[in-house]
């Protein structure tokens, strides 16, 4: 044993495992041991290690100057001592430890002996905060005993027991004080818990005081919460919401108040010392609000279903819910000291985080709902339109039938009409069963036909029936029915597209876009928002195009194509409301109205595009020029342009048919080839013929229909086309006329009249030269037959005709001279050098 002490390493090693008391005793075992081993550096190492275990810092001696500044009076206060001595040097380690020992050894001793009665001295007994601080420091002090496991463990075990007892009594006190509403005291205990690292207990306590009363989450009944279908007026007043705002407020306000109350409580209990409220708000959002959101959505779905609506449109109420939630649980929340100045912002982010999936669902659902909404409106309009048309058709048929049925003319009771209406809708246009009941009466029909026609008796022969044959009556009725239908349908062309409906749909598109775009503050949803807004716009165009505009134009064009003005005029039996306006090609007039409406729709879409999509950056004009939205819009515009072009082309065809018809029927043979004046015959005034006046009237009625209805380019093309085709009609007409030298002046007068219209009214410069050419053609006829040679020269002078006609054409024209046979030889001689007869001789 003695020899062991001779080895310093062993002595030092043994010493390091000794408790303070034992070590001090060991130092005194004998002088040699003391002097050679547990002294000086070895001694201060022992103390330094103890201090280091308690968390103090060892520093080189020269840095320890300021330590002398410590208030020596506080040396013995166990709460302050750890603050006073944070570092030490090896020289003063023993001294410093002495001070700690002095402060804490009494506590350590009690713990070591498990003597826990009156643990704290009287001065601390009423202050739990001081007590917990001391407890915490005792635990730290005990760390210095780690080298002596037995002492350390014993103290530590006892310490844990007393600490548990202490915490439990704190919790008990807290509860009691909370019950008696001594919140300040509770806050004091909370502090104790926080200091003792019992945060979870503090939070638990707070949570237990912040349980949501279950009554607050009971939703109002569906009928109270959701609005039934609104009338138009109501809709304008309160917007297009589906939730009853009062009811929603009534439900959410108590929840908001609850949350505000808890914010206040957290502020009192925790101040800014420990953050609890954010976590609490987050779990409130997660557990309460999301549940509510889900419940409302599923209730709404059920509500829709019970009202025979699309139950999968339930997310339509989400925007309202979202923004109400943000308002109630963010904007209207009190400030929180506990959460700090960023509280509002953080809560907003939390709300967004948790509601984001709902918003995404809404966006995914709403485009489909929107499409269905638009589609149903367009389809409904179409159905109504068709119903109306069918009804009108039936009316026409009945009216026609009444006109041909003498027994029925005065007996127009509605019940009878009704039965026929329904039957007609099935059998028209065949209407065979009806035919059989028609009485044969040529008499009545004849009276109807009286005065209906003032021209073209040859054509009408087909329709007039000389006998009382039932078959003919049947045919006539059928024909009249068909023609009246076409005529009536023409009147309906302009209602094929409803401007009101288009406007409404555009308005709805705008609202839907706004509704979606409102979420743009959720930045990570921005790409989705843009995509959905683009989709809404695409739906608008596709629906408008496919279900409204295209079919309308197609139908209008079909009607235009079917239209034969002469047939319409010949109908002997007419429906009252139908009166073919004279001097107008009715379908062209109607069609231009359609063009006008189409143009307005395009403009509305363009305005929407420019004012809504571009400023909101839903579409970037520069970046997205290849975007399918822009392509779709362009395609729509092009398709309307194509329809317009096609329709106008047909319309122009019809107009030319009409002009050709007037030329054929109104131009009298005497107009350009009057009989030789007799002694008595008065001199004819030089003015345009009646036929020319009618033709120009017809042109005037149609050339300017498009003005204001579409762009200048289209109007120019339309007018030029009319001008050119009209020119061709005149040429055709001239080739069929006979013109005498005496009559030429009226031809010139007519051509001047046409020219005047083209040059001064139509003002299409490209077309004018044709009519200048025509003026020169007019001169071919005024030349006296005696001047036949010069006539030949004139024909050869192509420049004279403005380069419009080839020599062959001019030659054809000159053949329309009434004295052609006489002048031919001379003319040809000049033209070809030899007359044809000369050739024969050779």
């Amino acid at each position, binding site marked *: 044993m003695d020899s062991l002490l001779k080895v310093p390493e062993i002595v030092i090693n043994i010493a390091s495992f000794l408790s303070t008391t034992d070590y001090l005793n060991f130092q005194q075992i004998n002088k040699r041991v003391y002097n050679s081993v547990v002294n000086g550096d070895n001694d201060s190492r022992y103390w330094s290690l103890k201090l280091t275990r308690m968390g103090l810092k060892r520093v080189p001696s020269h840095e320890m100057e300021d330590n002398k500044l410590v208030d020596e009076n506080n040396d013995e206060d166990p709460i302050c001592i750890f603050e006073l001595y944070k570092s030490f040097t090896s020289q003063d380690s023993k001294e410093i430890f002495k001070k700690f020992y002095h402060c804490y050894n009494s506590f350590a001793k009690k713990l070591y002996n498990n003597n826990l009665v009156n643990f704290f001295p009287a001065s601390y007994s009423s202050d739990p905060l001081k007590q917990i601080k001391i407890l915490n420091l005792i635990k730290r002090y005990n760390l210095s005993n780690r080298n002596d496991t037995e002492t350390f463990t014993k103290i530590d075990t006892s310490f844990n027991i007393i600490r548990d007892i202490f915490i439990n009594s704190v919790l008990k006190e807290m509860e009691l004080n909370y019950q008696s509403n001594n919140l300040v005291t509770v806050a004091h205990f909370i502090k104790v818990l926080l200091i003792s690292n019992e945060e979870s207990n503090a939070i638990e306590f707070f949570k237990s005081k912040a349980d949501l009363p279950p009554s607050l989450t009971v939703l109002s009944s569906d009928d109270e919460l959701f609005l039934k279908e609104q009338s138009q007026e109501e809709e304008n007043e309160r917007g297009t919401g589906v939730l009853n705002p009062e009811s929603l407020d009534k439900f959410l306000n108590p929840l908001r108040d609850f949350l505000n109350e808890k914010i206040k409580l957290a502020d009192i209990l925790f101040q800014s010392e420990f953050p609890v409220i954010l976590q609490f708000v987050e779990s409130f959002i997660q557990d309460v609000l999301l549940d509510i959101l889900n419940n409302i959505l599923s209730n709404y779905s059920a509500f829709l279903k019970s009202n025979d609506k699309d139950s999968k449109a339930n997310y339509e109420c989400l925007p309202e819910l979202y923004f109400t939630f943000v308002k109630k649980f963010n904007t209207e929340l009190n400030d929180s000291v506990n959460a700090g100045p960023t509280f509002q912002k953080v809560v907003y982010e939390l709300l967004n985080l948790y509601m984001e999936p709902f918003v995404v669902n809404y966006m995914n659902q709403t485009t489909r709902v929107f499409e269905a909404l638009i589609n149903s409106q367009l389809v409904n309009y179409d159905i109504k339109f068709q119903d109306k048309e069918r009804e009108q058709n039936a009316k026409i048929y009945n009216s026609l039938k009444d006109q041909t049925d003498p027994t029925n003319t005065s007996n127009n009771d509605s019940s009878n009409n009704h039965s026929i209406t329904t039957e007609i809708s099935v059998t028209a246009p065949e209407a065979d069963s009806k035919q059989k009941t028609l009485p044969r009466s040529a008499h009545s029909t004849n009276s109807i036909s009286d005065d209906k026609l003032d021209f073209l008796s040859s054509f009408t022969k087909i329709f007039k029936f000389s006998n009382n044959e039932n078959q003919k009556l049947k045919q006539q009725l059928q024909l009249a029915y068909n023609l009246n239908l076409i005529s009536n349908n023409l009147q309906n062309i302009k209602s094929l597209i409803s401007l009101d409906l288009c406007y409404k749909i555009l308005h709805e598109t705008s609202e839907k876009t706004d509704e979606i775009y409102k979420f743009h503050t959720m930045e990570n949803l921005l790409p989705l928002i843009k995509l959905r807004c683009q989709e809404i716009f695409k739906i608008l165009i596709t629906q408008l195009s496919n279900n409204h505009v295209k079919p309308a134009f197609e139908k209008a064009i079909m009607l235009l194509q079917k239209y034969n003005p002469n047939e319409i005029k010949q109908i002997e039996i007419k429906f009252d409301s139908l009166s073919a306006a004279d001097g107008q090609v009715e379908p062209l007039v109607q069609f231009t109205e359609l063009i006008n409406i189409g143009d307005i729709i395009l403009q509305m879409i363009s305005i929407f595009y420019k004012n809504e999509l571009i400023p909101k950056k839903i579409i970037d004009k520069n970046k997205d020029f290849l975007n399918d939205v822009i392509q779709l819009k362009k395609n729509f515009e092009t398709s309307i342009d194509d329809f317009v072009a096609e329709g106008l082309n047909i319309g122009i065809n019809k107009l030319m048919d009409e002009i050709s018809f007037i030329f054929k029927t109104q131009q*009298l043979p005497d107009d350009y080839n009057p009989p030789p004046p007799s*002694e008595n*015959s008065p001199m004819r005034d030089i003015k345009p013929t009646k036929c020319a006046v009618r033709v120009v009237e017809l042109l005037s009625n149609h050339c300017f229909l498009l003005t204001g209805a579409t762009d200048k380019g289209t109007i120019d093309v339309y007018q030029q086309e009319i001008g050119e085709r009209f020119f061709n009609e005149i040429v055709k007409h001239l080739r069929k006329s006979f013109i005498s030298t005496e009559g030429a002046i009226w031809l*010139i007068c007519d051509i*001047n009249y046409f020219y005047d219209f083209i040059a001064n009214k139509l003002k299409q410069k490209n077309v004018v030269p044709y009519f200048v050419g025509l003026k020169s053609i007019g001169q071919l006829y005024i030349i*006296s037959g005696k001047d036949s040679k010069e006539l030949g020269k*004139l024909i050869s002078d192509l420049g004279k005709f403005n380069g419009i006609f080839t020599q062959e054409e001019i030659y054809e024209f000159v053949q329309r001279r009434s004295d052609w046979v006489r002048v031919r030889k001379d003319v040809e001689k000049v033209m070809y050098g030899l007359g044809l007869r000369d050739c024969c001789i050779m």
Partner: protein
Amino acid sequence: MSSEDYGYDYDLLFKIVLIGDSGVGKSNLLSRFTKNEFNMDSKSTIGVEFATRTLEIDGKRIKAQIWDTAGQERYRAITSAYYRGAVGALIVYDISKSSSYENCNHWLSELRENADDNVAVGLIGNKSDLAHLRAVPTEESKTFALENQLLFTETSALNSENVDKAFEELINTIYQKVSKHQMDLGDSAANGNANGMSALNGPTISLTPTANENKKGNGNNCC
């Protein structure tokens, strides 16, 4: 044929032709006389245009049917067609353009060649408003008119000066010729239809039937 085409809204119908170089203002003279209109940038006439105005002389309604011809028409066959049946003519020149005055001779001889011998002719110096640019002295034209038995007026279609006067003088002259002729005709054709005398019934004014007679009497006057 309805009556409006052949209506008797006049007692006498005179065909008058407007001739002269291109650009002297024939069309504007006509539009000033018939419509009281003036078109600053009117284009040159193509072919022939017509306009009418009815005047009253001696209680008779006289309809002047005026043919406005294209000044640049070079086909004699066409111009001669214009002259056919004309009882009056106005040869128009531009007082600021001497070439248009010099060409009056050509127009006059073409007229004499193609129109009725008895045709009444007026010489018109148009654009009198351009006095500061005058190139044709009034006296010279006056002398020319006198020598050729033409009426003479200087007019301005722009400011209306003398336009009505020029036309009215010509129509008056024609009327005088016609009434004198009809008296002659009444004497010589006593056996003719009494109605033929009455202009009211069918006033086909043509001097042709008497042209030969006049030629015999006045043959030396013209050439």
